[in-house]
């Protein structure tokens, strides 16, 4: 079905439009905030991230004010330490990563020719978590309680209660909460990009933005979990004195540095790649031609993503690691410059082969490249270990990282604002203000940060709240401070351009830049993403299929109507986007806010050790999530199939690998397993650094752990049996097996505790019992979730919501159990058998 349907009558079309509009409309009044539509959530997300950017920018200005002159006492040392810690933390965690999630949530559905992302409520949940967590972390500074150990929180400084105070807990728990939101967004984006593209949009026809987002979301999945694992160890030490980073009891501060930078280095590319993705949309539009080297840039982005996981040690060149590993990581760090250069040259080549229109977005794009290339070149320098020994932790690195992040991220994002603003408001931003903003930002940025290269080489360490006046740093610092003001004026100009009232300006064209990709058919007034879901056969459909825009808005493609009053989108196959299902997605709901806020309540209560409040919040959160799942997911449709238009009939329900829920579970569990792998890494890390790993203390023994592993395997088999019997209509046997699996899980969990418990392993005595206990606790927490899932399936079965053909719940739970079985077997075998093998 690759041709549009016939034109329908005016009245018919108006009626369809009306039904669609009603289905997708947002509630009014205060209920507006319960919207889950990607357009709204994307805008809220982006605005919130920008407010955090401005907040962190003010912190940056405070830093420059304090450092403008030597020996300044404008602010105290302690306050300065809070300011620079929060500046870095907020920029990284509350602006740079969330802004791309925001833009992606806003742009992806229309860009992919889709109605919505597959899990709109999950997107809204992520936003509310981000908002609450962000306010919690930022607000701390008004109570003089902000984290003050630097944004990488090195222990023992950050684990010491006296030296770091409550700020460290706020950092750990507040950001863990936000990381949950980031992973939720990653799951949503991956599934959205893989399964919700318009029919015909094979994976090699995807807009580059989608490619980049897919790569970045995948990176989040492997990069954030090590940090979450690190956060767990860190918080266990702070809260319960488990000595993971305390050398006196076998711990090692370096484990945190490894876990942090295994996250922290990919993080840089997680920030950088989406900005390049914006450039990959902007450059072709203003070069008036398709991108040159589509495969080159995709491969380069994939390559960057992979390599970025092998570079983390270049943040640790001065920690005294063996020279051979320094040499290896120097080489790997240099290697990543190659795919990065390819991406920049793809843009230059596209401009060469096209005819460039010098627009405001292009100005910001080119300025970004000019800045970023300097950051890249200084990156090549600091990747060389001997030079890094001098440059590390000085203002040279401060200059380098700002050149990378501002050139590689902020400038492209502002380019994106100027480019995509018409999609928000149907009006263009002012070119005059845009150019003013560009020059203020470009000049201000360089005046601020270029001198810092020299300040660093002249010996100024970073993170000093003041400096003596006789070391030759005064003039350079003063120049930087003046530049910062100019830079800030530039940013304010952009803010003014966005916020200034524009209601007197006429409505602009729908596709003002005459771009070639599908997002430009979306209308700011409408919430449905696309009026009908088209068949796409080109990378730049609006250029290559000239009648497409009209066909779409005339509703001549798929799903032009909402007869049943439900929000519906198409699910297509992963590689070649064959239509597979009509997916009904969740609509407006309060449950997302309730669950996000109660989950936030859990984290906040833990920060202040309000155990009872925490337990209550956890209970509310649990109930909200169960309610959400019960009422909002895996609903059995009123009919098996639905006519999607132009003669295509598609099922309304699928389960297993063709369903979006299965993919979401799979992807979540990949991330979860990465966190688990990081904890296992911790176990063996301690083994490698100690001659006597167990330090003479008793292990958990072999017997109980192995019995526990066997019981978990039994529970897994029973779950699989339940799935089999359910699919083969032996409902009673399926239920019996669910009960059996549940019982085995409980017994297995108790048995799992017995090993370390009976051998009196005291987790505060030494790192060995502590790491064993952490593995056990991790497994048991997952077992608890697994048990709840089994009970849920049983309840669904009894309530008639889980049947032979409508078995998605059970299939997803079985998928979870594959991962749980692996986790339990690895964890119990490691703690039980490894000490015996020593």
């Amino acid at each position, binding site marked *: 079905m690759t041709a549009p349907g016939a034109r329908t009558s005016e009245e018919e079309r108006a009626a369809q439009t009306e039904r669609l509009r009603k289905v997708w409309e947002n509630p009014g009044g205060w209920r507006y905030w319960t919207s889950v539509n990607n357009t709204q959530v994307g805008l809220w997300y982006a605005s919130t991230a920008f407010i955090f950017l401005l907040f962190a920018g003010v912190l940056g200005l405070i830093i420059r004010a304090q450092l403008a002159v030597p020996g300044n006492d404008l602010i105290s040392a302690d306050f300065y330490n809070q300011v620079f810690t929060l500046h870095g933390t907020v920029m990284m965690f509350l602006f740079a990563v969330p802004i791309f999630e925001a833009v992606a949530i806003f742009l992806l559905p229309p860009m992919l020719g889709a109605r919505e992302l597959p899990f709109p409520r999950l997107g809204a949940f992520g936003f509310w978590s981000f908002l609450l967590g962000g306010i919690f972390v930022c607000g701390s500074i008004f109570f003089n309680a902000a984290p003050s150990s630097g944004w990488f929180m*090195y222990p023992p400084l950050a684990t010491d209660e006296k030296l770091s105070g409550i700020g460290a807990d706020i950092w750990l728990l507040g950001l863990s909460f936000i990381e949950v939101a980031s992973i939720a967004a990653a799951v949503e984006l991956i599934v959205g990009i893989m399964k919700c593209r318009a029919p015909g949009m094979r994976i090699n026809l995807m807009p580059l933005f989608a490619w980049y987002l897919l790569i970045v979301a995948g990176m989040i999945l492997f990069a954030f979990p090590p940090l979450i694992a690190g956060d767990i160890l860190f918080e266990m030490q702070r809260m319960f004195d488990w000595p993971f980073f305390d050398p006196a009891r076998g711990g090692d501060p370096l484990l945190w540095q490894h876990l942090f930078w295994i996250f922290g280095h990919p993080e840089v590319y997680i920030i950088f790649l989406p900005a390049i993705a914006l450039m990959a949309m902007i450059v072709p539009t203003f070069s008036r031609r398709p991108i040159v080297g589509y495969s080159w840039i995709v491969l380069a982005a994939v390559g960057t993503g992979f390599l970025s996981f092998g570079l983390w040690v270049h943040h640790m060149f001065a920690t005294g690691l063996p020279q051979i590993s320094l040499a290896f990581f120097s080489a790997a760090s240099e290697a990543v410059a190659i795919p990065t250069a390819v991406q920049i040259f793809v843009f*230059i080549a596209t401009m060469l082969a096209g005819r460039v229109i010098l627009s405001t977005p292009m100005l910001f794009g080119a300025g970004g490249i000019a800045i970023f290339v*300097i950051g890249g070149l200084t990156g090549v320098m600091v990747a*060389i270990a001997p030079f890094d020994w001098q440059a590390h*932790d*000085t203002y040279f690195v401060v200059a380098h990282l700002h050149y990378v992040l501002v050139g590689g991220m902020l400038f492209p994002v502002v380019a994106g604002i100027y480019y995509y603003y018409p999609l928000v408001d149907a009006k263009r931003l002012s070119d005059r203000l845009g150019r003013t903003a560009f020059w203020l930002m470009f000049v201000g940025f360089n005046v601020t940060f270029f001198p810092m290269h020299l300040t660093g080489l002249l010996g100024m360490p970073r993170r000093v*709240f003041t400096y003596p006046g006789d070391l030759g740093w005064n003039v350079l610092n003063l120049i930087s401070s003046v530049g910062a003001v100019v830079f800030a004026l530039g940013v304010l100009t952009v803010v003014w351009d966005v916020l200034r009232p524009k209601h007197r300006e006429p409505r602009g064209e729908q596709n003002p830049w005459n771009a070639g990709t599908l997002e430009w058919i979306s209308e700011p007034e409408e919430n449905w993403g696309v009026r009908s879901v088209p068949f796409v056969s080109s990378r730049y459909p609006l250029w290559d299929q000239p009648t497409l825009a009209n066909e779409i808005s005339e509703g001549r493609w798929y799903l032009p109507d909402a007869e049943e009053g439900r929000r519906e989108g198409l699910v297509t196959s992963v590689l070649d986007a064959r239509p597979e299902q009509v997916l009904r997605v969740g609509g407006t709901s309060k449950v997302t806010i309730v669950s996000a806020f109660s989950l936030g309540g859990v984290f906040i209560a833990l920060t202040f050790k309000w155990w009872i409040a925490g337990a209550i919040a956890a209970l509310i959160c649990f109930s909200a999530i169960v309610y959400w799942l019960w009422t909002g997911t895996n609903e059995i449709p009123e009919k098996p199939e639905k006519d999607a238009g132009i003669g295509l009939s598609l099922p309304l329900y699928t389960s297993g690998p063709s369903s979006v829920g299965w993919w979401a579970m799979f992807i979540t569990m990949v991330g979860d397993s990465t966190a688990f792998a990081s904890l296992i890494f911790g176990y063996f890390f301690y083994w490698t650094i100690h001659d006597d790993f167990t330090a003479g203390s008793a292990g958990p023994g072999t017997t109980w752990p192995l019995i526990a592993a066997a019981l978990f395997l039994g529970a897994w088999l029973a779950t699989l049996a339940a799935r089999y019997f359910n699919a083969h209509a032996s409902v009673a046997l399926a239920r019996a097996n669910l009960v059996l699996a549940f019982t085995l899980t409980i017994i297995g969990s108790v048995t799992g505790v017995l090993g370390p418990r009976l051998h009196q392993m005291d987790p505060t005595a030494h790192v060995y019992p502590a790491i064993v206990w952490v593995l056990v606790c991790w497994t048991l927490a997952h077992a608890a979730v697994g048990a709840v899932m089994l009970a849920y399936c049983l309840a669904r079965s009894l309530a008639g919501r889980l049947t032979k053909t409508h078995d998605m719940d059970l299939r997803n739970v079985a998928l979870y159990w594959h991962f749980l079985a692996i986790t339990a077997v690895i964890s119990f075998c490691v703690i039980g058998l490894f000490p015996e093998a020593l």
Partner: protein
Amino acid sequence: MQSTLDPAGIEAGLVRTLFLVMAIAGGLIWFGVMATLFAAMLRVRRSSEQTAGRFILWGGAVFPAVMLFALLTYALWLMPTLRPVAAAGDAADLRIEVTGRQYWWQVVYHHRGVQIAAANEVRLPVGRRVEFSLKSDDVIHSFWIPSLGGKMDMIPGRENRLSLIAEKTGVFRGACAEFCGTSHAFMALTAVAMEPDAFDAWLVAEAEASIDVEGDGSELFLRHGCGACHRVAGTDAVGAVGPDLSHLGSRRMLAAGIIANTEDNIAGFIANPAAIKPGAAMPAFAMLPPQDIRAIAAWLKGLR
């Protein structure tokens, strides 16, 4: 005096050359990329897609690969020269053990079986390889004397090695380079490179008690309990919590390299350390009679 661009040691010299090579090459590459970018943006004539594609291959992949390979060869060839892997039994003639503390440096010279304690100042002979063993007692610090060489972290529970060779005499400022808490900015270090003969003579003198150790100040120092934390050779003060003060008067700077070593400053520090160094472990002694503080300060300043 705290500059990587003004080297006085072999490592710092080689790294400065490395930097200059990279900076010049990097500058040329940047201008090249910018020229191409501008040409691409402003040019009216369109290149063919094939030409543009070749451009990606040569400019984006081949050229950086060749440049980076050359750079890596250069750098990896440098590394063993800069920081030779110390073989076992290859004990340097002089080993200086430096332990980072919040916010000062404990220094112990190990010279031919003798241990000589000091603080906040390291002296080293020109032309001889000096081995530093770097440790920490509390949080992570980083030992860095830019004019002599790159930095090395001091990590609790670990011992890191760093060997440096000073090439010319002089006084060089060093600093803690890893953020270590409130007064991280106030944790500096004085490195004094001396002629080998002068150094040997100094080390012999340093091993003995100061000749001016007798005096009123000595008695007050002990009476007010200073000896519980500080050691002064030749007296009953044997504390190991705070800096060793045996030859305080001969040090160039005070309070870990941040204020001039004068009687007034010593007295001021005793009365209220937090005013000079927030978060310092030493409590304020403002309750002591001012004349006692002055006497102690005068005596400490006299310990040469």
